[in-house]
């Protein structure tokens, strides 16, 4: 069983090893320092996949507007590729996006990346723009966007094999905020005014 969960302090070295693996670093804009990873871990925005205690994939997330979720660095060890590890991390981050009320998923891909343009359409991302020569080294950047609805999330979820387990820990900031928001809305009898996305997250978490 593979566990998809948030990265912890003890995982930072292994996450850095994944990003800086010789097969991954060219796609991720070069060497990744330790500090940005530990900052993301502290924020609860670093998603990892664990197999038998070993971290095999990592996904760094963030957001650029109140309604947009953004992926930053996504990496998997080469020997574990083609096993839907990245797919599971993307789907996990969709769940986190829903908890925070965000519904536009956004990813930047540098033009010479040969893997992501194949992976992203399978989980509902569409190529919306290609900015020519955007990177300093004259490479293009393409923007992949997914507008998240209940249907599109469930479609992506079907791509995740059954041997993956999503773990939303109680100390997850997003989950805590979500629960707090729902409690407050319930106390004020305003639960019907919660956004569609959050309504779905509520339903989905109840199912789980």
């Amino acid at each position, binding site marked *: 069983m593979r566990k998809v969960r948030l990265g912890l302090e003890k995982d930072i070295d292994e996450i850095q090893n994944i990003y800086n693996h010789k097969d991954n670093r060219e796609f991720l804009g070069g060497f990744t320092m330790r500090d940005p990873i530990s900052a993301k871990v502290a924020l609860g925005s670093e998603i990892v996949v664990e197999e038998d205690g070993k971290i095999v994939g990592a996904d760094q997330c963030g957001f650029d*507007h*109140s*309604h*947009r979720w953004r992926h930053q660095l996504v990496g998997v060890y080469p020997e574990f590729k083609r096993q839907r590890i990245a797919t599971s991390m993307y789907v996990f981050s969709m769940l986190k996006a829903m908890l925070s009320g965000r519904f*536009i998923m956004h990813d930047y891909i540098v033009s010479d990346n040969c893997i992501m343009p194949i992976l992203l359409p399978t989980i509902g991302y569409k*190529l*919306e*723009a*290609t*900015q*020519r*020569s*955007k990177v*300093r*080294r*004259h490479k293009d950047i393409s*923007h992949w*966007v997914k*507008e998240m609805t209940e249907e599109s999330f469930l479609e992506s979820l079907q791509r995740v094999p059954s041997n993956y387990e999503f773990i939303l820990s109680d100390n997850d900031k997003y989950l805590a905020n979500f629960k707090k928001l729902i409690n407050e809305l319930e106390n004020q009898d305003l639960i019907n005014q919660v956004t569609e996305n959050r309504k779905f997250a509520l339903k989905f978490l109840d199912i789980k």
Partner: protein
Amino acid sequence: MIAIFPLQTNYFSDFVDTSFIKSARSLIKKNLPSILTAVDTETKEYATMGWRSRRTSHACEITYFGHQRDDLLIEVSKSLILCSILEGRKRIEIYNEFEDINEIFEKAGFVNEGFHPKFTKDFLDVTVFGFVPSIDGLPSLGSETFANFVISNDVLIYRNKNFDLYKKDKDWDRLSNSKLTFGEELNREISEIESTANINILNIPKWSGDSNKSDIAYKPEDFYVNNK
């Protein structure tokens, strides 16, 4: 004749649409030219655009501050491209949320590179336009247009910094279609702009958008005649 010139604080509000005054005011006081306007010297109609972001030194984002005639907007957006090249930049982009002026940017030579769905806080789609001089060539201004660009110390700092950055890249040695390296191509573009007949380069080391801090504070009328 159409006169193009950088705005300074002493008169900028005359050439900016009232709904953009606030955002223009936050940009105008920089030491780099931040807002350019194209004015028809007879009718006094204007079109104004400026640099919204220079966060990455090799690229910049320009934005719209109002226009009264389409041909003026075309001329001023071309001028912003030329002015950005003088700073050593290799990509100029616009994120445009106003559908009615998309066509004007395409006429000015910008390439429609796609769009960001529901990008703004009001969930409007934003069209991305980009211009890369090494691919798209240099835009040429109209024969009736006369442009004034400022080269200050700050502009030169950016230009040198960018050339240093490009030197570090392995693509510095990449040959273009005309068999020039990237750096040579950029140098050629800069010297071509400087030698163009209807472009006047003002070398003012301590120019500032804040007219109180600038070495020279211009009035709009100073640019209504061909100064070259």
